[in-house]
């Protein structure tokens, strides 16, 4: 990674452990991630790789028995989460960081009008960090907020934005509900938007509409976006840079084109080779993702890795960086584009 551009959001060596009935689960193990201003960064991984927990850690929504054991999350130099803490990000959630959830149906309360739900965050934080409306009477604020919402709904290309606020969630289609939630994530004027598989529940034609919208919004508003997904195809379409996660570790990151055309970590290579488009003989990766209760030592991929050597079990491989890329594998000594 080049050190010249400053990171908006920086996650450094973050480890998160969650206590369960059957012991302590190490969900994240030394995660590193940098989000630079104005870029869309994809986080890819299979289920169990810890990508949802990463989102929750940034939002300060770690589960009741979970805490950061190591590392930190900083937003423009301000600590959101540090080792030993449960959460400190409450103040950032909603105001500095917007969130687009996975299932647009489950994320809206069916018994309230859409407008009431979209206004919620603004009552709390105002329209931006230095919102002049905050001390106004409620009726005035409401009028201003509604104007802002209508403007946002127009920006997310929802038909009939004026009427939409008065309607209930079930009166919208899946794609429209996702647009509503995108508008909600933008309501308080955040700099960063986190998206947790926001198109997984949608059809491909709707997915394309939403991806185009996100791209356009990011460009127009100078937003940075962290886009979590399991679909390399979506990453290829949408993202500028990408981080690949496996079993709670970040193993590779870099610009999308370079990473996908020339993956350096064995896992990234094998995973991409599983895609129906590239797969030669339709063979998956042998073995299964380990349970976080019994995480392997060192590089967590070593039990399934064909290139495993003794060092892999010993310690987490040192990350090798260069040309905006990062690879954490003992076999990788330098990375160029």
């Amino acid at each position, binding site marked *: 990674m080049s050190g010249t551009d400053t990171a908006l959001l920086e996650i450094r060596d973050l480890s998160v452990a969650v206590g369960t009935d059957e012991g302590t689960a190490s969900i994240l193990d030394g995660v590193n991630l940098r989000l630079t201003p104005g870029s869309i960064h994809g986080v890819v991984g299979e289920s169990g790789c810890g990508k949802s927990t990463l989102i929750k850690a940034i939002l300060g929504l770690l589960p009741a028995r979970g805490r950061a054991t190591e590392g930190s999350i900083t937003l423009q130099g301000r600590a959101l989460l540090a080792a030993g803490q449960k959460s400190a990000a409450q103040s950032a959630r909603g105001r500095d960081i917007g969130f687009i959830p996975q299932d647009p149906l489950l994320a809206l309360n069916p018994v309230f009008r859409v407008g009431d739900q979209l206004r919620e965050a603004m009552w709390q934080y105002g329209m931006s960090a230095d919102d002049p409306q905050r001390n106004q009477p409620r009726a005035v604020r409401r009028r201003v907020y509604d104007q802002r919402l209508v403007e946002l709904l127009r920006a997310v290309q929802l038909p009939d934005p004026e009427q939409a606020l008065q309607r209930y969630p079930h009166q919208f289609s899946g794609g429209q509900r996702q647009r509503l939630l995108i508008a909600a994530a933008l309501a308080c004027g955040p700099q960063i938007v986190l998206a947790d598989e926001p198109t997984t529940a949608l059809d491909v034609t709707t997915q394309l509409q939403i991806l185009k919208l996100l791209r356009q919004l990011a460009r127009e508003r100078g937003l940075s976006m962290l886009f979590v997904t399991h679909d390399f195809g979506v990453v290829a379409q949408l993202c500028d840079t990408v981080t690949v996660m496996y079993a709670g570790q970040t193993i590779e990151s870099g610009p999308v084109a370079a990473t996908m055309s020339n993956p350096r970590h064995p896992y990234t290579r094998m995973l991409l080779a599983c895609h129906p488009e590239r797969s030669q003989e*339709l063979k*998956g990766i042998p073995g299964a993702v380990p349970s976080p209760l019994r995480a392997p030592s060192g590089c967590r991929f070593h039990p399934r890795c064909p290139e495993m050597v003794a060092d892999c079990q010993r310690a987490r491989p040192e990350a090798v960086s260069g040309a905006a890329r990062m690879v954490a594998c003992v076999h990788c000594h330098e990375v160029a584009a």
Partner: protein
Amino acid sequence: MSAAPILSLSDITTVYGGGKRAFGGPRAEVRAVDGVSLELREGEALGLVGESGCGKTTLAKTILGLLTEKSGSIRLGGQVVSGLRPEAARRARPSIHYVHQDPGAALDPWWTVGHALDETLRIHGVRDRRERAARIAEMLMAVGLDTSFLSRYPHELSGGQQRRIGLARILTLRPRIVILDEPTSGLDLSVQATVLGLFNDLRHRLGLTYLFVSHDLSVVRRMCDRVAIMYLGRIVEIGPTAQIFAAPAHHYTRALLAASPTLTPGSLDDMPSLRDDPPSPTAVPSGCAFRTRCAHADEQCRVERPDLAAVTDTAHGHLAACHHAFP
């Protein structure tokens, strides 16, 4: 060059709702499948593709016999097996079986896998306990599992293992036609590859015919010999996979192909996207159902419903239902 059809559907229509309410007027009728004709050839894999709500699962359940068609006929190996109520229809179509979209949920949560597999054979009158055990062991092996899985409960299986068990369960019944309903949904990429490889392998080894219901075009392209595209209950295009992907004729197919993500990083701005959402199946537009979202729609599309017709004289079995089809 093409084998004889093992299953043929002619003008099948399946309707939800309809009839009368206990009080008041008639109930709205939704034509989930609307006049579908289709042939399944011995040994082929036919992909059935469409967005959610297009009627592909309804069509699959009609073929299986769980839903009764309103009109049209189904012939299985030359015999008419349509016009029957569900239980009779299932008895008439013993060679067709269905692997559920969520095979884990398709198992009774209180029963072990072994118990469920055993019951499947008992339902079909296999009385000899040793024969049942032998057939189960054989099929578990065929799907790459061993008999230690027999004592597991459904929730103790991973997604890939659930798929395998779901497949083994129906394979013990020695089907000829297997309907795979979204067989890769919810699977991770690395598991998906293994499962798809297994499907391919079993098809060739056991001489199975697949109806592969999916919305994932990259998977269908990899797995199927032919593809049928559905939109709002009708087949809008059907043909050999290579031709459909190389030269889609229907504007809907083109949009669908363009929208499906590929591994080549590309600019989103160059991709044409469809406007709006599909219309509700309760209010299907007149004429061509796709005209409300089609950039090429004109007066003819509004008035006249296009029928499936050969795209070119030279194309073998490549049909599309569009007034302005790409040649």
